């Protein structure tokens, strides 16, 4: 420190020169528009070339946030879509108050997931604080994921299609016949669709969507496409279904709150008790 001070004192002329020149140039750039714009223009051309190269690299670090923003936006757009209804709100149609905003989408991020067990579960980073409750449906942009089973304050667990306890009511998109989707615990890409009667015309490649019978999933969410049909002489087709959602790269999940769920369940219970 002492030596440094001596060094500055010994060369005070040079340092004073640099200091005063620096001050002068500060004044020049501060108050003289032409010099400032020239200076900025010259340095910009050098730095921008460097920044271009770096921004490509840097954008990868922002991908995660970008994704979250996009998934949030997706959820909002879905909310708007749900609010508009499919065609009930067309001009001239009588507006059905029940169909309005019956589904609300909440974006969440998968924290843990497994696909290699017989009873797989997912954990997502939204909980009761975010308005999540059990039996909410979970979907992604590509199709169904599962159903919320347990909720803590900030997290919830989801039972996905890839769990042997999972049952999902689904129907063929083209002719409305419905069956049950369940997983046999083998490949994470395939599930089976049961209880489609043999007389129904089913072809490989047909689309299977949710039936909307359970008051959990909205109607028409993609489940998968039919991979193959094996008939062994029973009353029902044995259909192998390829899931549209790839559970191995699940990251963002939208949880669906169904506004009329309690009402429907109460009605159903009353019917059953009678």
């Amino acid at each position, binding site marked *: 420190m002492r030596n440094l001070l001596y060094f500055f004192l010994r060369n*005070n*002329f040079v340092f*004073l*020169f640099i200091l*005063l*020149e620096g*001050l*002068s*140039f*500060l*004044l*020049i*750039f*501060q*108050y*003289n528009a*032409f*010099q400032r714009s*020239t*200076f900025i223009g*010259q340095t910009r051309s050098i730095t921008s070339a460097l920044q271009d190269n770096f921004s490509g690299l840097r954008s990868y670090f922002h991908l995660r946030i970008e994704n979250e923003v996009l998934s949030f936006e997706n959820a909002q757009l879905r909310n708007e879509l749900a609010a508009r209804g499919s065609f009930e709100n067309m001009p001239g149609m009588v507006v059905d108050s029940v169909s309005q905003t019956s589904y609300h989408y909440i974006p969440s991020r998968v924290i843990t997931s497994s696909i290699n067990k017989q009873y797989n579960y997912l954990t997502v980073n939204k909980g009761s604080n975010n308005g999540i409750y059990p039996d909410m449906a979970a979907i992604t942009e590509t199709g169904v994921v599962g159903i919320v089973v347990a909720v803590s304050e900030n997290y919830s667990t989801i039972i996905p299609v890839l769990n042997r306890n999972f049952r999902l009511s689904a129907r063929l998109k083209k002719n409305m016949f419905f069956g049950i989707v369940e997983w046999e615990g083998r490949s994470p890409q395939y599930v089976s669709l049961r209880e489609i009667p043999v007389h129904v015309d089913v072809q490989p490649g047909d689309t299977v969507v949710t039936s909307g019978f359970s008051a959990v999933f909205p109607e028409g969410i993609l489940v998968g496409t039919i991979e193959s049909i094996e008939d062994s002489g029973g009353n029902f087709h044995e259909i192998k279904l390829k899931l549209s959602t790839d559970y191995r790269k699940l990251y963002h999940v939208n949880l669906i709150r169904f506004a009329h769920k309690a009402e429907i369940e109460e009605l159903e219970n009353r019917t059953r008790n009678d």
Partner: protein
Amino acid sequence: MINIYIRNILRFFTVVLLQVLLLDNIQLGGYLNPYFYVIFILLLPFETPKWLLITLAFMLGFSVDLFNGTPGMHASASVFMAFMRPFTLKNFSPREGYESGTFPRVYYYGIEWFTKYTVILIMSHQLFLYLVESFHFSDILFTLARVILSTILTTVLILLSQFFIYRK
């Protein structure tokens, strides 16, 4: 001894006022401006401490800048000129060195010495000033032409002043 301080302070204000009130209105050919005020730096005593020299140069340039509305330009050029002065003096020093009680003037060291000393320092000042003013090297030849012509003009003015105003 106090006389030197008062004389230099008076000279400071005189050259600044002369520059901004009279000489800045003279523009030969629209490009050339005689920058007479730098004579203050030329005529400072040999014994002036370097830090004072460079600080005074900054204040001088900044004063001219304030009147010209170009903050920093003359200040930076003057500081550069003051920075060059000790090296120039050392380079042109007579064999015996500069005698005490003398000043850097024609009267003491002759016209040849004074002209060399003046041209080098004025040139450094003008070069710096015009480069900062144009601020790019694209028409460097034009800038250099301005520097040379302006240096000649200012040097002639300063030399004349030595014979008419600063006789002793």
